[in-house]
Structure formats: structure tokens, C-alpha cells
């Protein structure tokens, strides 16, 4: 009897260690997942529930990344950052204003970073490389590496798809013939659309730009 109790106690002890250990592993994994964020070239962001721009990673870049972190990341990934200036004659990125992310010289896939006053990333922009772009530009387009619905968003964009994936916007602003901007404050997402002639404003041939910005709570409307 005593032996049986002893065996049970040993099993319980081992079991609890395994269970707690598993819990620990789970917590570690959960932490890692949060810390790593949602990389757009690995995961389907728009299929993820409850995401916000703070979790978004694009080629490893994230909002709030400091200039030294960016520099280290660029070196590690062998990327090139091109600063603002006259197209074709741009200076190297200095952690100020807009910089385009390129994987080689003149091979920029549509990802741009905006740096704030403290030289941290305050906005990440992804431009859809359009169908009429040069073959090489289309080949380099970062949107080609997106997954699932996130990729569909760039290929088959429409108002219905936007509403189905993201729901109604928090606000929007029209710029006449230039296009329209939809803002999703809680997600930290701004969508800029430039229409193509003879098509609805929001159609697959529209030029599209997704901007990830810090999320902000939607102001409550008082009744």
C-alpha cells in the first residue's frame, strides 16, 4: 500500500513538474510571439484577430524602432535605406523623414519608413507596385511575399474586401481626383487609394498604399 502511495506521489511530482514546465514553455512561447510580432512576409496579418500596428513587422522593421536599432537591422539583413531627395539622386537615409527600404541598389519593393523627431520609426508605408510597373519592379514588390488575405488585399482590392476584412473605417477624407484616405484608428492603419479612370474608386486597378501608424482610441460620440 505504502509502495503504491509512493509510486503515485512520484508520478504526481513528475506530472506537476512536466505540467508546470509546459506552462512555462507556453508562457515563453506566448511572450516570444508577442515580442516577435506579426511579420507580414511570414504571416497573414489580416487573418489575425485583434491585431494592431504595434505588432506589425515588415522585413523585421516595426513602429518605434530606434535609429541605432534600424542601422543594426539593416546591416544584419543586408538591406539598403535610401533617403529623400531628387529621384535617382537620393542621399543615404539619415534617420530623418522618409526612407525607402531596398534589398539591392534600385531594387525597392514598396516599403518606406518615416522617422520622427527622435529618429524612431513613426510610420511604415507599403505601396502596391502596380501592374504597369516595369517587370523588375513587379518582381521585387514586397506585396508578392505577403500571405493569404493580406496578399489578396493588394491583388483584388475592392470596397467589399476592405469592409469584409477591416470593417467600417473610423474616418475618411476625400482628395477629389487624387483619391481617398480611409483611417482605422484602433488598428493604426491608414489606407490611401488613388483611383484608375472608368473604374470605381476602390477597385483592383486602384493604386493602393497601406500606412501603419501608432493606434489611437476612437473618440466616443456623446448622445
Amino acid at each position: 500500500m505504502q509502495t503504491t502511495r509512493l509510486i503515485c506521489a512520484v508520478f504526481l511530482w513528475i506530472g506537476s513538474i512536466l505540467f508546470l514546465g509546459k506552462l512555462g514553455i507556453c508562457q515563453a512561447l506566448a511572450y516570444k510571439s508577442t515580442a516577435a510580432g506579426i511579420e507580414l512576409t511570414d504571416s497573414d496579418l489580416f487573418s489575425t484577430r485583434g491585431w494592431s500596428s504595434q505588432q506589425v513587422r515588415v522585413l523585421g522593421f516595426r513602429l518605434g524602432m530606434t535609429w541605432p536599432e534600424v542601422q543594426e537591422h539593416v546591416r544584419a539583413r543586408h538591406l539598403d535605406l535610401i533617403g529623400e531627395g531628387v529621384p535617382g539622386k537620393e542621399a543615404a537615409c539619415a534617420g530623418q523623414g522618409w526612407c525607402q527600404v531596398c534589398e539591392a541598389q534600385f531594387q525597392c519593393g514598396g516599403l518606406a519608413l518615416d522617422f520622427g523627431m527622435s529618429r524612431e520609426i513613426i510610420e511604415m508605408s507599403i505601396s502596391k507596385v502596380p501592374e504597369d510597373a516595369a517587370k523588375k519592379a513587379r518582381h521585387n514588390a514586397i506585396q508578392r511575399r505577403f500571405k493569404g488575405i493580406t496578399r489578396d488585399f493588394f491583388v483584388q482590392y475592392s470596397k467589399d474586401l476592405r469592409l469584409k476584412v477591416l470593417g467600417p473605417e473610423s474616418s475618411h477624407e476625400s482628395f477629389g481626383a487624387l483619391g481617398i484616405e480611409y483611417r482605422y484608428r484602433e488598428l493604426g492603419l491608414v489606407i490611401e487609394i488613388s483611383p484608375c479612370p472608368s473604374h470605381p474608386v476602390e477597385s483592383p486597378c486602384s493604386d493602393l498604399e497601406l500606412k501603419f501608424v501608432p493606434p489611437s482610441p476612437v473618440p466616443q460620440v456623446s448622445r
Partner: protein
Amino acid sequence: MNYRDVTDDESRRILVAARTDIGKGYEEIGMCSGFVCKAIRTVNVHCPTNGSVSTLTGNKNLLRRLLEEESPRAGDVMVFKDTHVGFYDPLPPKGVSQIYKFLSARGSPGRKNNAGVSYGDPTWFNPLPPFYMRAMVIAG
């Protein structure tokens, strides 16, 4: 006949004219070189609106290629290796990405979804950097 570069003010007028065509389609505007000439005609009526890119860029009485050390200014013409032309606009209007510094007529016959006159990222049109040209007018 002597020709001179357009002034800053004339360059601005060209760009203002080009911006009025934003949103117009291929059927209305035609090829990219026609769009460029249509805007340049506000200062030089001799610009033909039915020529090809190479006809336009090869006409020494219409456009002058900027030297490497010269800085392009708003309203100068950006040329992508004789395949596409449009205008350089360093400060695109509100509602346009600040990276989209190139205003052009995008479209070709037979293509289904022509984007028409719109702003875009210059890197879309050719992986190689563009060169710049300045409109010319008759001097005096």
C-alpha cells in the same frame, strides 16, 4: 532661332497645367509623351502632342537634358530610358504619398486597366534612375 530654358515661373505653370489632368484616362489624354507636351504647350505651343517618347526627348528645340551637376526643379521632365516620361514634382499635393514625386500619364493601347494621369513612385517605371530634361522656349 535662339532657345532658352523655361524660367522657374514657367516651370510652375507647366506643372499646374499637368495637375489639372489628374484622374483623366488614356482615352482622353493619350500616351505619356502627349500628356507632357500638352502641359508644356502652356509655354511653348510647338510641342506636338502626338509624338513618341523618343521624338519628344530628341527634339532639341523643346527639351534640354540637364547636366549631372544641375538640380532638377518642379516641372522638369523625368525620362525613363525612352520608355516613359512625366513631370518631377518634389512636393506632391495633400492626399498623395510624399514618395510619389512623379506625375505621368500611365497607359498604353490595348491595356485594360490604364491608370491614367496619376502620381507614382519613380522606381516603378524603371529600376535604373531617370534622367531629367528642362522645357525650352524661343528666346526674346
